[in-house]
């Protein structure tokens, strides 16, 4: 099989898809138990868009980020990277690392900057590791430092920078190999404004937007913050490893139930948003029906179901004798229901 043959398998994906996850499962195994972190997650990140992921702690946000970034391998499912036009779960660690360098950038809450380097060196580090020629490297770093507005502090050790400044350096560092490349790339952010005050966070988000518009870079942001989520083009809700809803624009946490869209997964399963379930008194099951061009879900409890089944009397299809409720054999002819 040639490389091109292999790549043709993914020609189905639209050109504006940067990363796609199809039915991704992640199961962490320890000696004693297995933990399902992701259970059949499917989503697509589009070029030049900002996608946010919201969800409670332990819902699988970080795992999803790592799987998208190729740091963690999915247990089951496919992860497609546009630059490779390939499922990355099948390729070697070496190729993945090389492909990641100018396709994925990471920004974390803790900024992940090296304390013994200064701001400029921290931005440059990823390009050095990637083997970008010195001249190109310098131009890029200068440009990015200017872009994030830290020209004055470029020679400062990161330990002397404020939280906001560190975040900016982390952003610049994540972008250093992504700009000037063929594919626009994707920046994965895990709580990028987690330890910043709202004002600084706002400035950082504006910077994201600006970069998004000027460089066409896509952003995938894991957050708890409404402030961040409000800037997103698409917001994904995740809960217990399952995507429980999509929102086409930035969200408002108070009106989630009005903007939520839920999608069938590859197995035709539909996740139920838990806030709605709570409103309905956490029912165990629903009566579903299709009436007047719409699905109608009527919540029910287990007891009600039993009662309804218990009360139902039947007629024997052989002899026409009535079979009392709760019985399944005809007393007259012995036929079973």
């Amino acid at each position: 099989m040639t490389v091109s043959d292999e790549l043709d398998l993914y020609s189905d994906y639209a050109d504006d898809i940067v990363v796609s996850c199809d039915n991704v499962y992640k199961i962490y195994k320890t000696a004693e138990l297995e933990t399902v972190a992701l259970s059949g997650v499917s989503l697509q990140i589009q070029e030049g868009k900002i996608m946010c992921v919201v969800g409670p702690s332990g819902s699988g946000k970080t795992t999803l980020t790592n799987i998208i970034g190729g740091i963690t391998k999915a247990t089951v499912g496919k992860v497609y990277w546009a630059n490779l036009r390939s499922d990355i779960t099948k390729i070697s660690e070496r190729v993945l690392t090389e492909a990641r360098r100018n396709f994925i950038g990471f920004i974390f809450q803790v900024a992940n900057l090296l304390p013994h380097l200064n701001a400029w060196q921290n931005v440059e580090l990823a390009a050095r590791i990637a083997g970008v020629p010195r001249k190109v490297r310098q131009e890029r770093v200068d440009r990015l430092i200017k872009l994030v507005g830290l020209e004055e502090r470029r020679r400062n050790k990161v330990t002397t920078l404020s939280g906001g400044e560190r975040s900016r350096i982390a952003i610049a560092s994540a972008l250093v190999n992504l700009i000037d490349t063929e594919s626009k790339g994707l920046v994965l952010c895990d709580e990028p404004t987690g330890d910043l005050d709202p004002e600084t966070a706002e400035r950082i988000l504006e910077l994201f937007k600006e970069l998004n518009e000027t460089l066409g870079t896509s952003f995938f942001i894991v957050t708890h913050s409404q402030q961040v989520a409000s800037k997103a083009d698409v917001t994904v809700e995740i809960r217990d490893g399952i995507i429980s809803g999509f929102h086409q624009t930035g969200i408002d946490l108070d009106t989630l139930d009005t903007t939520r869209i839920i999608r069938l997964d590859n197995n035709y399963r539909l996740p139920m948003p838990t806030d709605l379930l709570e409103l309905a008194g956490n029912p165990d099951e629903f009566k579903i029906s299709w009436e007047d061009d719409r699905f109608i879900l009527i919540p029910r409890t287990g007891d009600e179901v039993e009662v309804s089944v218990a009360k139902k009397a039947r007629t024997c299809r052989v002899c026409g004798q009535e079979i009392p409720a709760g019985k399944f054999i005809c007393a007259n002819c012995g036929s079973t229901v």
Partner: protein
Amino acid sequence: MTQRPKMLKGNRWWSLGYALSSLKNYPVRNAGIAIILAIGIALPTTVFVWSDTGTRLVVEDYFDDVAFQYVAYPDGYNSYQSADMPDVQEYVDSTNFLEFSSRVSSTIGVLTGESLPDYTPYNMIGLNYIHGIKDMRVIIADNNFIETWAREFDYEGNFTALLPDEVLVSEQFCSYTRQVHGITIEVGSVISMDVIKRMPDPGLSWTATQLNARSLTNLTVMGIYEAKDSGTISAQVMTSILRKNWDPFGFASPVLGLADSVIISEDAMQEGDVGEIIAHGFGGFLFMRASLPRLISMGTDRLVPNLEYFQESILEQFQDVDVKGLRYIWELESTIRTFVASRVLTVVVFPIMIMSLMLTLFTSETSVSRRKGEISALRSKGASFNQIFSTFMWESLFLCVFGFVIAMGLSILMAPMIASSVGLFMFDSAVFTRFLSSITINPVALIIAGAIAMYLPSAYLLHVARRIDVSEVGQPAAMNAEEGAEDASLWKYTVSLAIVLAALVIVPEIIAPVGGFAIMEILVATLVLFLAAYLGSRAMRLVTAKVSSGTSFLLGEKSLYMSQSLRKRKGQFIPLLVILTLTLTTTTMMLIQVTTFESTLQNELEYSLGADIRIECSTKPFNFNETLLQYPGVIEATPVIETWSMVGSYTFFLEAVDPLPYSRIGLFREDSFVSGTPEELLQALHENKHGIIISEYHAKLWNKTVGQTVGVYYGAAEEDESRYYQFEIIGLLQSAPGFGIGATDELVAPTFGSQFGFQAGNGGFAIVNLDFIAQAGGYDGAETFLVDVSCYSDMTPLVETFNLERNTDVYTPTTFDIKSESYSIQLFLSGIQGLTVVSFIMCAIMGLASLALFLGSAVLERKSEYALFRSLGGTKSQVVSMVFGEFSGIVIASIAISAILGLVFGYVMGILTLGVSPFSPVLGAVLTYPITMMLIILSLESFVMIASCYFPARRAGEVNPATALRNL
């Protein structure tokens, strides 16, 4: 169709650059690792450097003292030509084994001058001096030979290359000339002489024509010489003849030897003269000087066998040639062997070596695991596994090289310390400087050092990969999960420790620590030391925590923090406690080890001397005893006759003593005699003139017991005469003062006494009655006297008087010079003393380095804790005192446990060290605890360690709560 995407392959050399910057950015941590590794490398290397340099120096000394190792000359039946001596020279020169060879000839010369009478006809054994004829040996040699030969002489003026009109003359020649002619020859004097080319046959008087002399006039005397040693090979081949010079009935004097000679250069003679002299004079000799660089390149360990092999190869090839040489070579060989054997001392420093390697591993692993955050950051920036892995490997390689270089530096400094050690913490600066300037590092030592240095990269290889793998991208800089306070019970560790220590003490009692067993037991003891230090540390940590919690009246609320902190953080404190305990224990242990060896040595010395004073001399009459008794302070003295003896095929010595005085003079020990006390048995010997006290070993061997008789052949006073007597066995002995062990077969290694020269060798000895042996064997004097004095200060007049006497040596335990009497013992002693000092220094460095590393990182990790204290209202000084209290608690805990462990291990290692030494004590080890020295050294070490806790504590106090809490 889509093109394969462009990917960034990565910078192959990034890891090297990053490793270098990382080394630069964490100087303290990296220097700490390099120094600790260096200690592990340096210790065994030092022993090798010491032994190699020492061997080289003794070899160089030998070559400095001995100008020529060999001299070849025709055997008694051949002339120079018929013995193919020119071929011999051609052969030896072709081997590359020699620095050079020189043909030297000699003949008779006669001093001439206008006022001096004619010497012809000349008779070489005539009464020449009375006739005004001063003849002498004329040595004709090339200038290379003369310059090299100079080292064998004391001289005034110069002893260098000679011009044809220059001459060197011997002191005795000058003295004889003064007697014969009344002329005083001095440096600068001018003399003339006739060099006789054809020596007359002994007893015949030859005319001038027959003598065919070459006249040399106006020769300037450049130097006057006297041989330093009459035993050199040149003195052996240029022997004197005894001749009556003045009076036919008078004494003969030695003439015409090396002592009565002059030296001229070959250039002073004309062509053909030397050949004629070789044929008709005293003949020619081929002197050979071995090439030192060549011998060293062939290995100093094999130096003596190589020298011997060369001598044999000449003798094998040339049947008509004799080769003399290699005098005193056995001394050189014995010294080289002792140096090689002393390498076993490496096992003494094993605990420190292993400790350093353990600490290196621990520190490097901790350092790598603390960098999880950094690894995570690098991975998030696109660094591949291989890039990060090679960064760490580069770092480890650099640290390995630094460690190696530091270790070499340490070895170069420490090896001279061992060599120049003259006691604990006492060095001979001259020896130190000489050793330092001649440092030799054997390739084997370099290989060993290199192999140990590679331990760090190997450790990284095994550990780093794991660490990188578990570091996930996006992890915050490693914050250790909070560790719960340990709730272990104290007795578990205490009981285990007690069992381990008991086993340690019992094992040497069950398996005698001799030779290979001793080395094995030392290695096992080393492992046990680590186990004991671990158990002790666990126990002491809990004890300290308990004590801290009970000191709230002193420390207030701080006691709660301290006790909980000590119960928690076992990952941090246990290794530190173990390391500190190990360093302090090792110091104590080695102090006890070395003082035990010193005391055992002193005890053995006293016992082998046998009395307060031992006099060894040429035979002196028995009444010399009376002379001795007249000296002030002398209480008693006894002569000792030593003669060979035999029972069947078993040889041993008979030591004949005056029993009663000997019982009072002899420095007996409890177990000297087996079948009774020394007083009882010697009283019995006094009463039974035909009695004998034999060794228990011989009694078993011969199947004899007390009361039976044993037939003994023994040597009489007259040479080659022997006597036989059936002695009655009146007692059995194990050993006896003055004579050593009763049966030498009982010991594996030679006794200390045998190294001093006082052990009755050749199988052992038995004690008999002096009166009987003197009478039966025809002895009228003795060569050994044992003297008892009232106190040591009384010895001085006696010692001084007899030391001046020729052929008399006076020994006392206080004035005995071990260095000159037994180089081997001195070597081992200075080795172990030097190593103790070196180990002490290394332990101190390691203790301080680990304190700096552990406490430094503990403060860094717990910055937030201190910040919290400050924010809760704690003052800076409160934080400092709290942290200082906690850290010094650790040091105090290790001091406490190491005091106990040090005493136990010192006891065991003291015994085991004697097991690995190349000597066996007759009396067993004398365990000595140098309490004062231990207190001083340990207090000093503890003080420095406790004081060094202040610095991290101060840093903890300086934590800025605003910064620390903001960055939480």
